[in-house]
């Protein structure tokens, strides 16, 4: 049924720290790697080794540059994936019941066996989280690695989404955002985590942590000391070097 559950037991989701992300795309690659063999397999590629490779990905890393009024710029790497919204519009528009939100943990999934490939869910999502598989004729999306996070054959520490376990910078965290005492919820509270496009009224579960404010000198921070080519101190330099230094300075 494509009506949304009233409440979900847990609100499993991701917290992405834009202050830490270095834009290495490892999360996107490991997402592709895991999901190409998991629930939504195959994660189809078209022309993978040709001139115009293209295909289904659940995680895309953008890079943005911001410029403020004073002309100061900042580069921010921005991974984009399904936010597992509480009021997921992609679920309610589905005419077949293929799109659903799980009552127990809030994960939004597609039942590919009954999806008719009408693509309306991808129109309803403001975040571009859903990608259509043109070979299979069905819609696909991030599963929050539902087949990994509950997999008892894996060691406990591996039961997190592939994007989280692979992030070399530690920019991604996974947990229950419905529990105010969970580690992720405390992180969101401490760092001012926010929703993407709250005006779209989707109530995303995933949160983003903003880049920390830049140090621009006005707060008393100083630029790091630069090495001088001719140092003021002459300790350890030879006689001729000291003599040259004296003449030239």
């Amino acid at each position, binding site marked *: 049924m494509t009506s*949304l559950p009233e409440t979900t037991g847990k609100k499993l989701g991701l917290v992405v720290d834009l202050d830490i992300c270095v834009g290495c795309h490892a999360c996107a690659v490991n997402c592709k790697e895991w999901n190409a063999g998991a629930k939504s397999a195959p994660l189809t590629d078209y022309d993978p080794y040709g001139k115009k490779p293209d295909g289904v990905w659940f995680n895309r890393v953008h890079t943005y540059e911001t410029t403020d009024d004073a002309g100061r710029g900042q580069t921010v790497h921005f991974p984009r994936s399904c936010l597992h919204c509480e009021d997921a519009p992609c679920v309610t528009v589905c005419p077949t019941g293929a799109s659903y939100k799980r009552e127990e943990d809030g994960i939004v999934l597609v039942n590919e066996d009954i*999806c008719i490939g009408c693509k309306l869910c991808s129109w309803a999502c403001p975040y571009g989280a859903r990608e259509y598989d043109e070979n299979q004729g069905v*819609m696909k999306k991030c599963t929050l690695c539902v087949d990994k996070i509950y997999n008892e054959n894996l060691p406990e520490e591996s039961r997190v989404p592939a994007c989280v376990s692979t992030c070399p910078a530690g920019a991604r965290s996974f947990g229950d955002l419905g529990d105010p005492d969970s580690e992720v919820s405390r992180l969101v509270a401490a760092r001012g985590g926010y929703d993407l496009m709250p005006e779209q009224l989707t109530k995303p579960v995933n949160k983003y942590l903003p880049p920390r404010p830049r140090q621009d000198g006005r707060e008393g921070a100083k630029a790091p000391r630069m090495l001088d080519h001719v140092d003021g101190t002459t300790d350890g330099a030879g006689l001729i070097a000291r003599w040259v230094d004296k003449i030239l300075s």
Partner: protein
Amino acid sequence: MHPAKSVIFFTTASGAGYGMMIVLAFLASLGVLPREAGFGFATFGLAFALIVSGLLSSTLHLGRPERAWRALSQWRSSWLSREGLAAVIAFVPLGLFAISWSFNLITSSAAVALGTAGAALSLVTVYCTAMIYASLRPVPAWFNGWTVAGYLVIGPMNGAVILAFLLDASDVDQAAAITRLLALVLLMIGLGVKLAYWRNIHASAPVSTAGSATGLGHLGRVEMTGSPHDNDNYLLREMGFRIARKHADKLRRITVWSGFIIPMLAMVDGLVFPFEPLTLPFTVIGLVACQVGVATERWLFFAEAKHAVTLYYGEQAV
């Protein structure tokens, strides 16, 4: 939004078919519609052909057309599902009306009752089609009442223009005059609604911005310097369509003249000089122009609409 040919054909063709049915039921209730098999075959037959070919085209664009029947199940939440269900249910009174009227099977009043029920369900179906688009918050151009008004007017309007030709060609003078008048009124309302729809696109404040999409707006202007992929992907092909906006003004002029003003002149001509030899050719010109205009209108409806996901790919506001 990508203007898929199948969806443009579906919404314009089935819209016109349902519109014809509504006008036919109206003429039947006035008692001016002939009850005759050949005439019924031409008018009801064309209306059904438009509806059915439109619906078929909409299922053929699915990734899995063989599963289309499943789309009837989620009417509690999905406008697409409601549309499918309304379309299926509408066939019952419409089919009974067409057959019983044309073959003189039951009394006029009983047939008119069926026709009225069919017309109401036709309007419900077109309303559901409109709501599929009008309920999508990420596409602000669609997420408003003008979308619904446009669909509800243009279907019956086009239906009336087509029927005015068929009635004229069949020499059913009284019904032709009434239909021309109705078409003229609907053409005027349709033009007004469309102009208001366009004004609304321009006058509305942006709903979402690159700043709100990334949450980086407090840092200043947000620009994408690195795309996740070098080539187009599904999102850009489906929702990042840009060609139309370049030619929007020209295409709008084509829509206004071809879709509304030329058919209006043809309808006025038919009302003023109903028995002149040139009236029928003028009606045909109005009919053809209307089809071109309505198809252009529908193409623009998709192509001009910006989707929020484009904010992640360099668009500044939608």
